[in-house]
Structure formats: C-alpha cells, structure tokens
C-alpha cells in the first residue's frame, strides 16, 4: 500500500510540477521501481529481494561526481560492494536538455571509460525513480538491505569537499553501511546530508 502510494505520489509529482514528496524513511520499505537498463534489460527492485542493493545517483558533468570518479573512489566502492554480491544500480535522473542527460550508448561509454563496474545503469529521464527516493544530489547514495528495507540514505562519505584528493581520507558511509548489514548490526550512520550538485530533474 505504501509503495502504491509512493508510486501514485511520484506520478502525481510529475503531473503537477513537483510538490514536495515525503522522502522514504530509513527503516521503512524502499520504494519499488521497474525500469529498463542501458543494455535493454528489465530491472525490478522487488525481484532483487534477498540481495543487498546500492543505488547511486550520477551526472557525469557534475564536479562532485567527477571528484569521486576522478579519484577512483566510486569505482573502488563499486568493486568492493559487487565483490560481496551487492547489486549496484547507477541511476541518472537528468532530464532531456539538462546537464548530464545522456543516451544509453553514451552512458555505457562514460562508465567503461571511467572503469566503473555497476551491476546496472538506468536512465531515469522522467525523474520517477529519483523523486520516489527523493534523490537530491549527485552523488546521492541509498543502501537497501536483503529484506527490501532502506538501510542508508545520504552522501557517499563524510567530506563534502569538491577536491578529489579528499576522497581517500574520508569515511565512506556506503561501505560502512554494507559492513554493518553483513555483520547483522544496525547501520551506525543510517542517514547523512547528501552533498553535491542538484539532480537535474525536468520542470
């Protein structure tokens, strides 16, 4: 019912120039979504139950995204996560004509050039998924546990500096959350203030 409401709200948001959407709370079910990834494969979050899922919001032209790809921090985090069997979904919610909006081919090229290894990439032009999660910045990170419960929402790390060299010394909240979940512990930092460029939603 909650998911249904969230979907209704997300659709409603698109229809009537985006009113404020209540963000999904950490500890409550992550909003379900279905989409087709850049390789044409259908993805449905509900089907991934039993796996830990990481959602990463991206925009390759955003300096903060560049910070984390330029320093190799995002790629490293992706590798560590996927090595643990985590499903990593990179989502781009830039609307057509806005910064960071790319075709599926370009998205694949950008990712492979950067050496990134997400499990899937989704182009969310309409912003439906972004708004369902209340994704605000690029990067903005979400961790969903095996039961489909939102376990972490926020920044990738604790240093909102734009400088690539600061990524190495910062505390990586996503890896910390994954470790806590694996250890069966509650996530120590379940939310943090996301930092970076605004997600370039359409009007």
């Amino acid at each position, binding site marked *: 019912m909650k998911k249904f409401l969230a979907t209704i709200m997300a659709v409603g948001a698109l229809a009537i120039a985006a009113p404020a959407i209540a963000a999904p709370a950490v500890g409550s079910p992550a909003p379900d979504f279905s989409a087709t990834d850049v390789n044409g494969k259908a993805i449905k979050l509900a089907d991934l139950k039993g796996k830990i899922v990481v959602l990463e919001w991206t925009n390759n032209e955003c300096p903060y995204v560049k910070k984390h790809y330029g320093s190799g921090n995002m790629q490293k985090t992706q590798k560590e996560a996927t090595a643990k069997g985590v499903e990593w979904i990179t989502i781009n919610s830039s609307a057509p004509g806005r910064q960071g909006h790319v075709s599926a081919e370009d998205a694949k090229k950008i990712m492979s050039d950067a050496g990134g290894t997400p499990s899937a990439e989704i182009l969310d032009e309409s912003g439906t998924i972004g708004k369902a999660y209340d994704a605000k910045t690029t990067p903005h990170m979400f961790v969903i546990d095996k039961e489909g419960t939102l376990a972490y929402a926020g920044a990738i790390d604790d240093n909102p500096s*734009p400088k690539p060299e600061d990524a190495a010394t910062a505390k990586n909240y996503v890896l910390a959350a994954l470790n806590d979940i694996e250890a069966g512990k509650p996530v120590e930092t379940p939310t943090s203030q996301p930092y970076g*460029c605004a997600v370039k939603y359409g009007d």
Partner: protein
Amino acid sequence: MRRLLKACLVSLFFLLSIGPVRAQDGEGPYVQIRLVPEGVLKPGGEIYVAIEQSIAPGWHTYWKNPGDSGAAPRIKWSLPAGFEVGEIEWPVPHKLPYGPLLNYGYEDGVILLQKIRAPAELAEGAVTLKADIDVLVCKEICIPESGTYELILNGLDSSSADNTDYFGNARGKMPAPAPGHATYAEQGGTFVIEMPVAWPQTIKRYDYIPTEWGMVENTAPSEITVEGGRLTIKQPRGQRALSDVNEVPGLLLWSMEDTGPMNAYAFTATISDTSVAATPVPAPNTAPDQSLIVVLFFALLGGLILNLMPCVFPVLSIKALSLVKIAEKEPAKARLHGIAYTAGVIFSFLISAGLLIALKSGGAQIGWGFQLQNPEMVTLLAWLFFIIGLNLSGIFEIGGHFGNVGNKLTQGNTPGHSFFTGVLATLVATPCIGPFMGVALGFGLTQSAFSNLLVFAVLGFGLALPYLALSFIPALQKILPKPGVWMHTFKQLLAFPMYASAAWLVWVLSQQSGQMGVFAALMGLVLIAFGIWLLRHEPAKLLWKNLVRVFAILAFLAALMLIPGGTQKPEKSTGFSQEWSPQKLSQLLEGGDAIFVEMTAAWCITCKVNHAIAIDTPSTRRVFSERNVQYLVGDWTNQNPEITQYLNEFGRNGVPIYVYYGPRSNGVRPEPVLLPQILTPGIVAKAVTGN
C-alpha cells in the same frame, strides 16, 4: 564590465588582499573573493575579517546548511604560530528553489565574518595570513572554485582605511539571537518548534530556515502561528533521526511589512521535555520584559484577592486578630510574625511552582489546579478544612500533643507558627485560585524557570501582603476592632465557611471517585472526629491514657486507609452542550457554524458560577439556538492532556476558559475570541451577536 570595475575599485581602495582565482572549467571565475581586515590587529587582540564573495549574476553560493543540494564554502587558514581563528559567522541566507529542491544561499554577493586573534607577542609591521577557500557556485550547473587568498594585516594603509560602515553593514545582515528559548519535538511526522514570544500583533510575515540538515523537508511549507504568547513552527519531518541530533539550531524570519527583506532570529532549540529555559522574553523593538511586569502586577493582585476567598479568609482574620494582641505589647515581635508568615507563604508557592515545573519537564500535561485532579489530595484537603472547622468551633483547643495544625494555626504565637500559618494559607488557598491568576499562571508556565518562579513568588507575596502590612503599620492595626469576648463568637462563626469548603470538596470527590469515594471520605471525617473526641477525654491513669492515644492514632490511620483512589469519568454534560474533544472541535471548525467552547472542572467555583449565571440561562440558551452556536464543554476535573494543551494554546494553565469562534463569513472563519474569566449573560450575548 561591472565586475571589472568592481575589481578595479577593490584593488584601488584596499590593496589588502590579492586572490588568485582559478575556475575549473575555463570560464569564470563566478565568485570573486577578497579578505578585508576590520582594522589594526594588536598583540593579544582580535579583529574581524570579512570574507567577501562577489557572485556573478544568476549564480549562487551556499549557506552553512546548503539545503537539498550544494555545499557550504570551506575556508582553511594557514596561520603563523600563536594566531587563532573563530567560527565563521554567516549572514541570513535566501531560499533558493531549484526544481523540486530547495537550497539556502546567497546571490550577487555575501560577506562572511570570522574573528582572528593575535598572539600576545606580535612584532610590528605587516603580517600575511593565507586562506585556502573552496566555494561551490551554481546556476544551472555547479562549479567548485578554489584559491589561496592573502590577508595582509597591519599593512601600510591599514590604519588609514575606515571600514566601519563596511563591517557595520556586514554585521547588519547577521541573525540576532532569539529572545526566547526554543524547544523542538516530533508530532506525528511533523517537526514542531515552540518558542515563547511577547511581541506586538503587527508582525505580518514569518519564515523558518533550518540550520541543521534533515530535520524537516526543506521544500514543504512551514506553518508558523503565534497564539497565547507562543510561537509554533510546524514543518513535515525530514529523514534524519532525531536521535542523531542534540540541539537543533534554526532561523526564524519575521517582518512587520508585507514585502521586503525580513529580520532574522537565530535560535537553538532543545528537545521539548526539558522545558527549563535560559532567558526571559523581551518583545522585539519594544521595551523588554514589559509583559512580565504586567503579569507580575496581576499576580500581586491575584494574591491579594485570595485573602478574600471563603477558604482563606477565616484563617487569616483570626490570625490577624491575634496579631493585634501581640502588636499592642511587642511591635517588634509582630513584625517578626509578619515576616515569618510572608516567608511561609512564598516558600509554599515556590515549592508548588517547583513541583509544577518538575512535573511539566517530566512531560506531564498538567496545569495549575493539578493538585485537585488527584482524589487523594481532594480528600486530604476536605479533612483539613474539617479539622480547621472543628478547631474554630472550639471542639478541641488542647495545645499540641501531636501535629495539631489547626490549633497552632490560631493559638500559636512564635514566628515558627506564623511560618506554618503561611504554608497552611497557601494550602487552603489552592481550591480558590481566582480568575486574576489564570493569566499570570498561564504566562508563568510558558516562560523560563526564572520568570516562572518570580510569578509564583509575587503571587505568594500578594497573599501575604495584608498580614505583612498589618504587622508593620500600627495605624492599620487600629482599624481592627479591639480584642474581646466577641472574638470567641466570631471565631466559631468562621468555622462554617470551613465546613462548607469541606462539603464542597467532598462533592468534587463524588465526581472523581464516585459514591464509594464519598462514603470513604465521610467515614474518614467520622474517624477523625472520633479520634479527636478520644484525645479530649484522656483518662488520668497513664496506662489508659496511652491506650486511648493508641486508639486515637488507629482511628486516624484507618481514616488514611480509606482515602479513595481511582478516577471515574466525570458526569456527561446534559443535552444543551456537547462534549469537547480536539476531533470534535476541528470537525466543527470545518463547518460554518459558530462555536462556543467552555472548559470547566468540578472543583472550579468560578467555572460553576459562570456556567450557572451566564451560560445555562434561558437568555443564553436562546441566543445559542437562534445563532446556531455549537456549544462544546470540556471537563478538566480529572487530568486531561488534550484540554491542558488547548489551554496552553490560549496561554492559560487553568480553567475556566471561554472561547468563541465566530461563524464563517464568505468562507473565512474569524479569529477565535477569548472571553473574560468572569462572565455575565451580557458578555456572552455580546460575543455571539456582536452587540
């Protein structure tokens, strides 16, 4: 061109800082930064440094809480040994909406301030400090700009440059500290901040900006209301757990104009359970504490009026007459009695206030009169009045074998007795809280602990004042009739108000504990009377004497065991009225009819009198039915947090309260009208019909 001109002016006028700016994407820079010292930095001294950002048109930089996206500027100083730097002081930001997001930041330009402290040893001549500054500047897209900037202190032209206006202007954009202490709480998905305020009605606009991220949904509108001296900010909760924060800072924006820039108060809210506050509350732009003085005046008046209440008057008049006897012989001793009595009263009031504050900070939704919401307390008070009555009737006058309070009350003549008379006077005054004190107590309870205690102390002082005056001013003593045999008769006469008070309290108890409670309380009276009778007829032989005493004590203990507990629903109101509940009220507010709300309690005499003479009368009934007035009654005889909260909304902490909500006209409902605490049918009719 304008930027170029500005840059030229900058270098011409100050030549103090040179900042190499490098933009990441070739274009730009979009933010020009310069560092300006306020003046000469002396050894061991401190000055402000301005970090000035000139922002390209259409672009913006961020506040310390950037909002939904973005990032605050970062300033990293490289300081020579011994130098220290303070926190960044941020001017009030603007709300910058961006699609479905909301950011807090600055457009065109901003001056951040930071304090720099010099070491005690500071060589003469110029000192150069360096700062690495990262600024994120955004329009449609975001660009981080960074650079290293120099601040040259005590340079050649430092002493000649007059920066007074520049820094005065910069300081003028900082938020002022909020005058009241704010608290926060979460109520059903809404973040609620409350702050006591005492400002004029002319404030036209409010706004709220969270300094801490994640407490509220930034984009959701905040609902800000002022009612009964309390400002409430409500905004849907954000995703960050409350356990993640301790104190929650924020900005309250306000303006007396319909348009234009707003003033800002910075506050730091603590979680609402700890209701102890730090500062009293002045109104903005008006004389501080004016309202407190008015309230204190009413507290004094209320205290004075308490002397005339049927439960207090007998006790005090006897005491006053005995004072005259003392005063004739030993004026100094009389004054001592006056002081001891005053101390006793104020002491008891402060204890009550302390208890009330403690209970409230423990989260209890209570108000004044809370003592009488407890059947045990009502029973004990009924017995106390009964015992005082017996004493006044002359049933027992034997000097203190045991805690014979009533006896000591009238007969005792040491200052210690006077102190306890003060305590007793406060105790017996409890049920007679007069209307004047409703406002004072309501105010007191929403204020800081200090003004709270002050209000109660003044209330007590008012109660003690007549006796105190009597003990100090011989001329007043002369007004009182000469002591004589008539006093004995008068004293016996005064027993009857005491019995009446006891009877009334038993009736209150009937509403709280039902028939069994009344029976238990009455049996208690019998046992007390029996115990007193036993003590009056003590045999001469020690063994029998002790046996009789044991029986007497057993009788009193048995009475104590009878004290009824438990509560039962107060009687339902009859046909004419409907039972008040928050749901019922909001449901009726949705509709168009006028609404009259009465909050009452069985133990509240004023409430009962008002109801009988002004509301439950043929004329008021007719007015209500002609005008389709929905009449709601809330009963506060037993504790009811919802009613307590309603009272608080109107700045009150006790009953009665009468609120009239006019009917909707053109779909708009007028502001509710608070009626006086002493009603006449005329007042009610005028509120409803307007004439």
